[in-house]
């Protein structure tokens, strides 16, 4: 009996100490995440007016949402553009960072220098810097976007294809710049692969090409998912993202206001979650197939 009670009190003590360590987070999460999230949702159902003595809320049901979805000519277009751009960028980032990681996993001199170069953008990428560079045309794939034939070709494309292609050409380097962390994640997964598996495969007569598809790629499937999710989130949170800027501008606009901006923020969040889901499910499926 006493032993049992002692065991319980020990566990209780451990739990209490654990809560002690995360107490700050519990308070912070409620104050700075949960409460504002609920509050933002409440705003999204109201017409919010900021007056001198505080804010006034007029309940409008789902009017802000229907306005964003059916009346606003810009919002839906921006969101569709964002979704397409993200779905175009994620594979590019993944493939590029995987190629670079495979290179950096080889043994050669100045490896550290190249690793330093490919991680550099993570350190310097901020909204205003990217805006200035894009404005000067410094982020486009050098030369390609300026060739008249290419411009001609793009102009011929139907609109749904034209926008992503244009985005791809004008922001090609920018997309690559989002690969820094992903390269490191791939690299660390590559280094965890047991070298003896490659030796065994080589003895069995497997070529380097076969070894890549049969050994390397399957062992990167977890890193694939981590990287894809990370890429979607970074792209979606980036302050130069057009949807984010639109929502931000609407917050202070006379026509829009806080209520409308809140509704759009939630719609955007929903779209982002769907994108995350698509990317995750696709890669998880892929990983499962490779394992079998």
């Amino acid at each position: 009996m006493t032993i049992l009670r002692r065991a319980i009190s020990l566990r209780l003590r451990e739990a209490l100490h654990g809560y002690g360590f995360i107490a700050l987070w519990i308070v912070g999460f409620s104050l700075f995440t949960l409460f504002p999230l609920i509050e933002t949702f409440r705003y999204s159902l109201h017409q919010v007016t900021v007056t001198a003595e505080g804010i006034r809320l007029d309940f409008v049901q789902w009017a802000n949402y229907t306005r964003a979805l059916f009346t606003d000519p810009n919002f839906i277009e921006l969101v569709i553009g964002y979704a397409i751009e993200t779905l175009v960028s994620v594979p590019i980032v993944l493939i590029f960072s995987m190629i670079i990681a495979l290179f950096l996993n080889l043994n050669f001199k100045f490896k550290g220098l190249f690793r330093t170069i490919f991680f550099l953008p993570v350190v310097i990428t901020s909204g205003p810097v990217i805006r200035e560079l894009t404005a000067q045309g410094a982020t486009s794939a050098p030369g390609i976007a300026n060739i008249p034939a290419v411009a001609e070709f793009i102009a011929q494309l139907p609109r749904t294809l034209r926008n992503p292609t244009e985005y791809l050409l004008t922001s090609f380097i920018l997309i690559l710049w989002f690969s820094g962390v992903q390269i490191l994640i791939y690299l660390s997964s590559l280094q965890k692969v047991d070298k003896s598996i490659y030796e065994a495969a080589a003895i069995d007569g497997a070529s380097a090409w076969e070894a890549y598809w049969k050994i390397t790629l399957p062992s990167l499937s977890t890193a694939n998912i981590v990287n894809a999710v990370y890429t979607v989130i970074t792209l979606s949170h980036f302050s130069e993202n057009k949807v984010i800027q639109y929502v931000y501008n609407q917050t202070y606009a006379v026509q829009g206001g806080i209520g409308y901006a809140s509704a759009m923020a939630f719609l955007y969040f929903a779209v982002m979650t769907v994108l995350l889901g698509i990317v995750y499910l696709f890669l998880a499926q892929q990983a499962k197939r490779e394992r079998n």
Partner: protein
Amino acid sequence: MQTLRRFNPDWLKSLLFGSRTRSGLVFVVLIYALLIAIGFVYLYPLLFMFVTSLKSPSDLLNPMVQWVPTEFYTGNYEKAYRVLNYPNTLMASILVSVVPSLIQTFVASLVGYGLARYRFWGRNIALLLILATFIIPPQNTVIPQMLTYKEQGLLGSPWALILPAMLAQGYKSAIFILIFYQSFLSLPKVLEEAARLDGASDLRIFLTIAIPSALPAFIVSFIFSVVWYWNETFLTSIFLEGGVTTLPMQLSRFVQAYENLYPPGTVNIFDRLNEAVKMSGTFLNIAPLLVMYFLLQRWFVESVERTGITGE
């Protein structure tokens, strides 16, 4: 005849295409060529920025001058320095990124330690919610915070960034909590248990044993935190507007600030705002980060290995 006999084709073949033990020359050259080419494309925006920032107005107009300016012209930097109000904004940026980072790193380590070392009800829920905070876009939570700060008169003061950091809700806090969670999880428990038997309190164990043994996680978290706070403009433009002005904030209103200093109608044509001045401003903006990166690059590029954040 003799030279032909001495010439060993196998030797040449292994030199060029490699053997079982070492890679061949063709392969090595190919790798360097590819990496240099990709590296050039990758750094192209930076090179472009740097070269453009050194061009004098006449170089800018001269179509012959592409990559090498005809003179070493620093006039753009002098202008950008004044327009950015560099000493003030630089100090503001340092303050606004270093102070919250210090606090955020420490608090995140506390939370990560609690989650990694103690078993209690709701631990997995907490981990899940931390992941969720990483996903929630900032604009879904920022407006009520802004309104509360406004009520309390904190809008525009650094406290608007420090307060959330104190409560583990700073910028990207979730990542740092997970970094600490991972690294404490992988540390052996033996020392802590020994200390506990000797009667040390939990907080003391954390401060004297856990912190020193997780030092890499602390350094990595701190430097990444500084970099991300430095580059953050969405939150700063909402929380600090009208108060503190950071470097990126000043850069984003560069044109306006330039025209205040050099009114367009009154200055001569060479003092009009051109892309060289803008690029100088951009370069001044990232220069402190570049210095930091090249001093601490080991910690940056080995961060993933040192903290084991991928944690398969």
